[in-house]
């Protein structure tokens, strides 16, 4: 057993950093960054300690044991799972705990989060050095890290939802960090809103699951308890639940059709992009899918939906990246594409494969983003690849590490990306050929657009007027660290760590060969096209009518824009109109106007003519008599 306090330290140290910065160090640039970096490093170290404990022991058995709920729930798990739950909300039938559930999957993810996160934090110290809002930035960043850790460790769905939302919140804050820039602020709102919308389904799913978990020990949100309960739930209902939960994942992991926020999220500072794309936010969706895979496992329909969503995302995002000129956006689409692959893997019942790719992807995608950030930093926030030239020479460290990242992403042997991607392709080839084709197509395209990016921006001679120079050490060291991880990621047995009991699948030689060839093909094509540094993108002519479609991102933004501006706003306007007209004018003012009119009319009875008064008096008496005599 590991000391709970170590886990809790890993859990809360970024939060403490965030709070400290917010309360005391909002004006101190050095202290704030140091505290934030210290926080995440502490968390990383604690994670490492926990990880050593976890992986030091071997699983005894894979059966789960249950104990009834107590005030403090301490489960006796096999040694490689640690759990502690503290009561948070608890009365009557409702139990919501606050705790952690550490299993190999979680610890692996946590390592990625804190490890890659640490690199990004350190890098940010350099990248944001000139920004006046740096303390605020580090506070947000720490909050983000905390939220992500919370998702990873959460032991029940409500807690998970809380951190899920907090991730959305902190992504909103970070993307919109330069809030005075309208595009950045808009991007933040967009990211948050899309996530919120997705979470609508997610929360419905959670509550639905909870309301049907009344088997055995009363309703529960507890993930490990749910694992034992799920098999008893009606599959039809479970499918609905699963799809609702998947809604949240679609939003967070930016799957089609809710992928639109991701590219816009590039408006945030580059370290944020790195963090969101590599280690945290988008990965959270995939991680969640793996974490609660026991729900999806028996549901073929849900799984195929997931697989197809993943596949489509992979292919579509890859095509979009081809027509993009912004270095960060290209990377963003590549992230999308890779996430699609991961989700597809999970849809094909391969959580291990998905998580494996997630891990390696975290390494090289963080590397790529940080590299891009380094470039952007050097070029004074120039992001258009066509304005970059020969950076490999002027920025060697950045350039070479970027190349490593590129190759890893393309899946070139023996870099980490090769191994993990191959697992997924093999899985697809095994289960669903059409998905395999789509994934392969995505791979070619990946190789192509990454090649395009690299050859345009880094290859060749530097521009004469370029003042680009290498970034400071605090930014390059994280690059080197991540490059190292990308290099060796395939050899350190990540799958084994993830699912200790599982057999490690053997390399499918045929698939590996095909994918390698395809990747090289893609790179080759891009080399041919872009080696000579054309002034304009030759693709524009080559693709013909398809190009505008890609440029407009398959018109998704327009559709959503139509929805937001026309449909939603139209509904809102109609509602406001209904209120103004029916409730206020006809209803409220109608009543008052009726009263007014009645008053005005009755008023006229008071003619001022005394004879009329007398007449009324007489008639009143007569009427009174008639009323009285009516009873007889």
């Amino acid at each position: 057993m590991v000391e709970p306090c170590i886990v809790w330290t890993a859990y809360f140290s970024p939060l403490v950093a965030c709070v400290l910065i917010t309360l005391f160090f909002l004006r101190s640039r050095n202290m704030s960054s140091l505290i934030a970096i210290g926080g995440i490093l502490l968390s990383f170290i604690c994670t490492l300690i926990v990880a050593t404990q976890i992986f030091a022991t071997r699983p005894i058995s894979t059966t789960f044991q249950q104990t009834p709920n107590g005030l403090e729930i301490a489960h006796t798990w096999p040694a490689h799972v640690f759990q502690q739950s503290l009561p948070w909300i608890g009365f009557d039938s409702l139990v919501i705990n606050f705790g952690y559930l550490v299993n190999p999957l979680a610890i692996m993810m946590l390592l990625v989060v804190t490890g890659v996160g640490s690199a990004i934090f350190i890098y940010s110290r350099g990248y944001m050095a000139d920004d006046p809002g740096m303390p605020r930035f580090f506070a947000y960043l720490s909050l983000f890290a905390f939220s992500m850790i919370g998702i990873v460790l959460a032991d029940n769905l409500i807690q998970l939802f809380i951190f899920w939302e907090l991730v959305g919140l902190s992504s909103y804050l970070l993307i919109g960090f330069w809030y005075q820039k309208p595009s950045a602020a808009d991007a933040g709102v967009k990211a948050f809103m899309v996530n919120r919308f997705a979470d609508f389904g997610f929360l419905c799913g959670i509550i639905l699951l909870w309301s049907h978990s009344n088997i055995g020990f009363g309703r529960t949100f507890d993930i490990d308890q749910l694992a034992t309960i799920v098999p008893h739930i009606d599959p039809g209902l479970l499918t609905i639940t699963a799809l609702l939960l998947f809604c949240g994942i679609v939003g967070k992991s930016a799957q089609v059709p809710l992928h639109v926020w991701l590219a816009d999220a590039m408006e945030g500072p580059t370290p944020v992009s790195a963090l969101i794309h590599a280690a945290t936010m988008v990965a959270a969706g995939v991680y969640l899918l793996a974490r609660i895979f026991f729900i999806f496992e028996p549901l073929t329909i849900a799984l195929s939906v997931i697989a197809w969503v993943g596949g489509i995302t992979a292919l579509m995002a890859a095509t979009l990246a081809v027509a993009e000129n912004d270095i960060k956006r290209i990377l963003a689409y590549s992230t999308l594409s890779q996430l699609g692959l991961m989700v597809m893997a999970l849809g094909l019942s391969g959580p291990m494969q998905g998580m494996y790719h997630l891990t390696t992807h975290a390494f090289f995608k963080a590397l790529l983003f940080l590299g891009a950030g380094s470039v952007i930093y050097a070029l004074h926030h120039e992001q258009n690849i066509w304005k970059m030239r020969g950076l490999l020479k002027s920025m060697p460290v950045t350039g070479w590490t970027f190349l490593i990242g590129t190759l890893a992403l393309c899946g070139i042997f023996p870099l980490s990306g090769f191994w993990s991607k191959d697992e997924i392709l093999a899985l697809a080839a095994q289960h669903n050929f059409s998905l395999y084709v789509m994934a392969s197509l995505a791979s070619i395209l990946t190789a192509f657009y990454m090649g395009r990016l690299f050859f345009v921006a880094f290859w060749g001679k530097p521009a004469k007027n370029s003042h680009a120079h290498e970034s400071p050490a605090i930014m390059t060291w994280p690059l080197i660290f991540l490059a190292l991880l990308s290099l060796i990621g395939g050899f350190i047995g990540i799958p084994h760590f993830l699912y200790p009991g599982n057999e490690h699948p053997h390399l499918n030689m045929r698939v590996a060969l095909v994918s390698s060839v395809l990747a090289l093909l893609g790179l080759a094509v891009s080399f041919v096209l872009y080696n000579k540094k054309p002034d304009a993108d030759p693709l524009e002519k080559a693709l013909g009518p398809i190009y505008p479609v890609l440029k407009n991102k398959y018109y998704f933004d327009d559709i959503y824009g139509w929805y937001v501006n026309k449909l939603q706003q139209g509904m809102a306007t109609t509602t406001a109109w209904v209120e103004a007209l029916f409730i206020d004018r006809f209803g409220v003012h109608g009543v008052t106007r009726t009263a007014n009119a009645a008053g005005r009319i009755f008023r006229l009875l008071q003619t001022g003519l005394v004879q009329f008064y007398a007449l009324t008096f007489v008639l009143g008496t007569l009427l009174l008599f008639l009323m009285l005599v009516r009873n007889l």
Partner: protein
Amino acid sequence: MPSLFFYFFAAVMILGALTVVLARNPLYNVLGLVVAIFSLSSLFILLEAFFVGIILLLVYAGAVLIFFLFVVMCLNLNADTFTTAKQTRFRILGAIAGLMFFAELLLALKSFLLAHSMEPSTVRGTIETIGRILFTEYLLPFELTSLLLLIAIFGIVSLAQGAFNTGKEDEATL
């Protein structure tokens, strides 16, 4: 014979009353009321209520109506004052109101008269009998009427004071 008297006085009374309502000249109105009051007092006597019959004649015809006449003459009201005035819609409305009242009254009376077929009693309202009761049982109301008359005096004094000096207004008293 008494029934003949009754019908006669009733007819005269109604005629007098109608004169009050219909005649244009205020003088005729007042005289119409005098006639009506006279017939009423005759009816009282017919009912053997001698005392109130006489009082009615004395107080009403003798004092009140003379007062009316005095005002009419004093203010120099004559038919001309009213001839220019249009007849109002209230003429018909008033008639309708009166008729409706009468109709409802008949409705109310019908069952009463059917239920009570009463014979006149032997009560004779002579001065003696009435006076005896008046100063014993009806002492309090009798005293109170004095206050009523006091109010009338105050009222006339404070309202009509100086009202008959034509022309100049006694503003200081207002």
